[in-house]
C-alpha cells in the first residue's frame, strides 16, 4: 500500500513539477521541458481544431474571446508592461476595424494588417503626451482621446460611414471561402493571434520588456540604467495600439459590420478589466482575463435566457451588478488576478498530496 502510494506520488510529481532546468538556454526558452513543449503543441492543435468541434455560437464566443484577448494583450503591454494607463484601447480597435473594412475579400489579411499599422501610428501620437503626463492625468488624456475618436467615427462619414457605419459585403470571400462564415474568420484571426501571442511573450522577456518594466517600476532609476524613456514609452503605445488595431480588423470580419457603438468607452473599460482581472504580469493573464470577461456575461446571459423571459430583465440588471462586484472582489481579494489564482492552484497541485 505504501509503495503504491509512493509510486503514484512520484508519477504525479514527475508530471506536474517542471523538471530542473539544466542550463540557461532551457531557462530562456518558451517551454523549457519536453512536457512543456508537448502541452504547448497540444494546446495549439486544440485551438486549431476548435472550429471543427464547436457549433457556431460557441465558436462566435470563442472568436470574441480571441479578439478581446488580442486587444487586452496589447493593453497589457502598455499597462502591465510599461505601467502607462490607457482608457483608449477601444478607439484603436475602432481604427483597425474601419481601416480593414476598406480592404477586405482576398485582401483581408492585408486590410487587418493595415488597420494595425494605422492604429500604431496613431498610438505613437497618443504616446507623446505620456512623455510629460503620468498616472491619472494620462488616464484622462486617453479618455479624451477615446471620446474624440468616437466623434471622428461618427463624423467622418466618407471613411467610417458615420453613425450608420459600414457593412461588409455579404458575398465577400477570402480565397474562395465566405467571410460570413465564422470559421473562416476564426482561422483568419488565429493566423494573426498565434504569432502575436508568442511575439508578445518573447518581447516581454527580452530587452523591450525589461525596459518597459523598468519604466513601470521606477522611471528615474530606469534612466540611470540607460533606458531610453521616450523610445520605451512610444514603442509600448505603438505596439499596444497595433494589437488593438489587429483585433479591430478581426472583429469587423466577425460581426460583418462596423458601427461606432462597438468602440465606445465601455469597451475600453472592458479591455482594462481584462488586464486587471487577468493579472498584470504575463501574456497568459491577458488570455485568462479575456476568457473571464467575455465568458462570464455570456454564461450569465445563457442562464438568464434559460430561466425564462420573466426573469431576463432582472437578471440582466443583476449581471451588471455581478460584473462590478466580481471586479471589486478580484481587486480586493486577489490583487494578482487570475494568473495569481492560477499560480496558487498550480502550486497546490504540484505539491499535492504532500503540501510540504
Amino acid at each position, binding site marked *: 500500500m505504501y509503495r503504491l502510494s509512493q509510486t503514484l506520488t512520484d508519477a504525479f510529481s514527475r508530471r506536474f513539477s517542471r523538471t530542473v532546468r539544466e542550463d540557461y538556454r532551457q531557462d530562456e526558452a518558451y517551454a523549457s521541458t519536453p512536457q512543456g513543449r508537448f502541452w504547448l503543441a497540444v494546446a495549439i492543435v486544440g485551438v486549431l481544431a476548435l472550429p471543427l468541434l464547436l457549433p457556431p455560437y*460557441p465558436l462566435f464566443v470563442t472568436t470574441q474571446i480571441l479578439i478581446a484577448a488580442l486587444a487586452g494583450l496589447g493593453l497589457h503591454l502598455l499597462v502591465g508592461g510599461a505601467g502607462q494607463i490607457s482608457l483608449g484601447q477601444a478607439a484603436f480597435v475602432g481604427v483597425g476595424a474601419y481601416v480593414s473594412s476598406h480592404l477586405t475579400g482576398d485582401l483581408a489579411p492585408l486590410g487587418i494588417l493595415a488597420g494595425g499599422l494605422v492604429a500604431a501610428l496613431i498610438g505613437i501620437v497618443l504616446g507623446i503626451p505620456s512623455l510629460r503626463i503620468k498616472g491619472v492625468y494620462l488616464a484622462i488624456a486617453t479618455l479624451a482621446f477615446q471620446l474624440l475618436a468616437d466623434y471622428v467615427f461618427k463624423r467622418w462619414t466618407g471613411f467610417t460611414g458615420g453613425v450608420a457605419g459600414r457593412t461588409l459585403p455579404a458575398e465577400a470571400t477570402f480565397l474562395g471561402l465566405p467571410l460570413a462564415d465564422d470559421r473562416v474568420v476564426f482561422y483568419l484571426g488565429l493566423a494573426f493571434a498565434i504569432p502575436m501571442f508568442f511575439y508578445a511573450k518573447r518581447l516581454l522577456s527580452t530587452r523591450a520588456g525589461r525596459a518597459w518594466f523598468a519604466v513601470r517600476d521606477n522611471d528615474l532609476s530606469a534612466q540611470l540604467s540607460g533606458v531610453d524613456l521616450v523610445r520605451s514609452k512610444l514603442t509600448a503605445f505603438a505596439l499596444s495600439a497595433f494589437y488593438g488595431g489587429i483585433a479591430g480588423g478581426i472583429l469587423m470580419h466577425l*460581426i460583418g*459590420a462596423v458601427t461606432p457603438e462597438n468602440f465606445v468607452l465601455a469597451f475600453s473599460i472592458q479591455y482594462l478589466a481584462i488586464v486587471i482581472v487577468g493579472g498584470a504580469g504575463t501574456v497568459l493573464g491577458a488570455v485568462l482575463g479575456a476568457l473571464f470577461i467575455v465568458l462570464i456575461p455570456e454564461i450569465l446571459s445563457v442562464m438568464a435566457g434559460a430561466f425564462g423571459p420573466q426573469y431576463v*430583465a432582472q437578471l440582466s440588471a443583476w449581471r451588471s451588478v455581478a460584473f462590478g462586484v466580481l471586479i471589486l472582489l478580484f481587486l480586493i481579494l486577489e490583487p494578482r488576478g487570475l494568473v495569481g489564482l492560477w499560480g496558487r492552484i498550480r502550486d497546490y497541485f504540484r505539491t499535492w498530496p504532500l503540501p510540504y
Partner: protein
Amino acid sequence: MKMNRRQVLKAGLAASAVYSPWMIARAQARPVKFAAILPLTGAFAFAGNAGLEGFRDAADRINDAGGIGGRRLELVVEDSGYDVARATAAFNRIVQRESPEELVFVYGDSTGTSKALAPEITRLRLPYSATSFSNELADPNTYPTIFVFGPTYNDMAGALLQQIRLQRGRGAKIFLCYSNSEFGRDPIPFIKDRAGKLGFQIVGEEVTPLAIADATPIVTKLRQTQPDFVIMQGYVLTVEPLVVRAAREQGIRATFMGTYYSAELALMQRAGAAADGFIVTYHNAYYYDTTVSAVEQIRALRRAKGRDLSYRTTYYMGTWMVLDAVAEAMRRAHAAGRLTRPGLIEALENLGDYNAGGQARNMRWVNHRLPFTKLWRANVRDGRFDAITDWVDGSKL
C-alpha cells in the same frame, strides 16, 4: 425572484451546454418560439422592459387561447444592453440553441444591430423585425425576411410634413433638431428634400447628443430663426422636455413635432404645461383608448392575471401589436400546414386586412412596412394625446 427547481435545473443545463454541441432532446409537442433581443439594460432600458412586458402579455393571451394550433407559443428573451456586439452574440446564441423548426421569428434591437444581423438573417430565411424604424431595413429586395411593423422614420416625417402643409402651406419655416445617432439622422435627408419640394423653408438645424444638460443654446437659435414648426427626431424624451420648456419659457410659440419615440405620456410629465400642443406620430393605440378592441383585450388579460391595470406605455402597445400580428400569421401558416420560416414569411406578407385589434390600419405591406400612422396632439389638461387625424399614409408625399 422566485424560481422553481425545474427552472434552476434548466438554467444549469443550458449553462453547461454552452460548449456542448448536443442539445437536450425534447419529448413533448414542440412549442413555437418567438425570440426577442431587447435593450433591457443601458440607455434604452425603459423601452426594452416595457416592450418585454408587451410581448409577455400578448404571449399569455395567445397561449390562454390555445396557442398556435395547439402548439405553445414560447418567448425567448435576451438582453442587448443597446450594444451591437452583445446583441449579435445574443442572436447567435439563440439561433444556435433553438431548433429551426421551433424558432420562427426574431425581434431585434437597434438599426445597428439589425444591419449587423441582416446578412445572417437573410441566409437563414428567418423572419425578423426590430425596434428600429430605419428606412434602410424596409427593403425586401435586400432583406427579404425583415418586416417593419409600422411606418419608417421617413414615413413618420412625411406625415408630419403633410400636417405642416395643411396648417401653414408653402413658406412654412421649419427648424430641425435631432440627435447625433443612427435614428436621429435617419429621416433628415428625406425631410430636407421634401421640404424643398413643398416650398417649406428649413430655417435652422441643430444636432445634439442623445442627452444634453441645457437647452438654452437651442432655444436661442429658435428665437433667432423664429420657425413655425420644430421637428425633433431621435430622442427618447431626454431632450424634448428640456427644449419645449425652455422654448415656452422664452415665449416661443412654434409648434413642436416629434415621431414615435416622442409619443409617450412622459413628455407631459416631464415638460408639464409646456408640452401642450406637441404633435407626434404614433401608429398604435394608446392604453387609455378603450374604444380600441386590442386595449380591451389587454385590460381583460391583465385583470384576469391580477396584473397592474395602470397606464402601459406605447412601447408596450407596440410589442403587443407585433406579437399579435405575428401570432395571427403563425395561425394562418399553421392552418396551411406550413408553420416554418418560409411559411411564416408568406403568411406575414399575406396578412392583408388584419388590423391587430385596431392597433394598425391593416397589414398591407408596402416594401415590408406599414406606412400608415396617426398624428396626435398633446393635451396636458387631460394628460393624454388626442388624435388629430385618421390614418395618414406617410409615404404619399
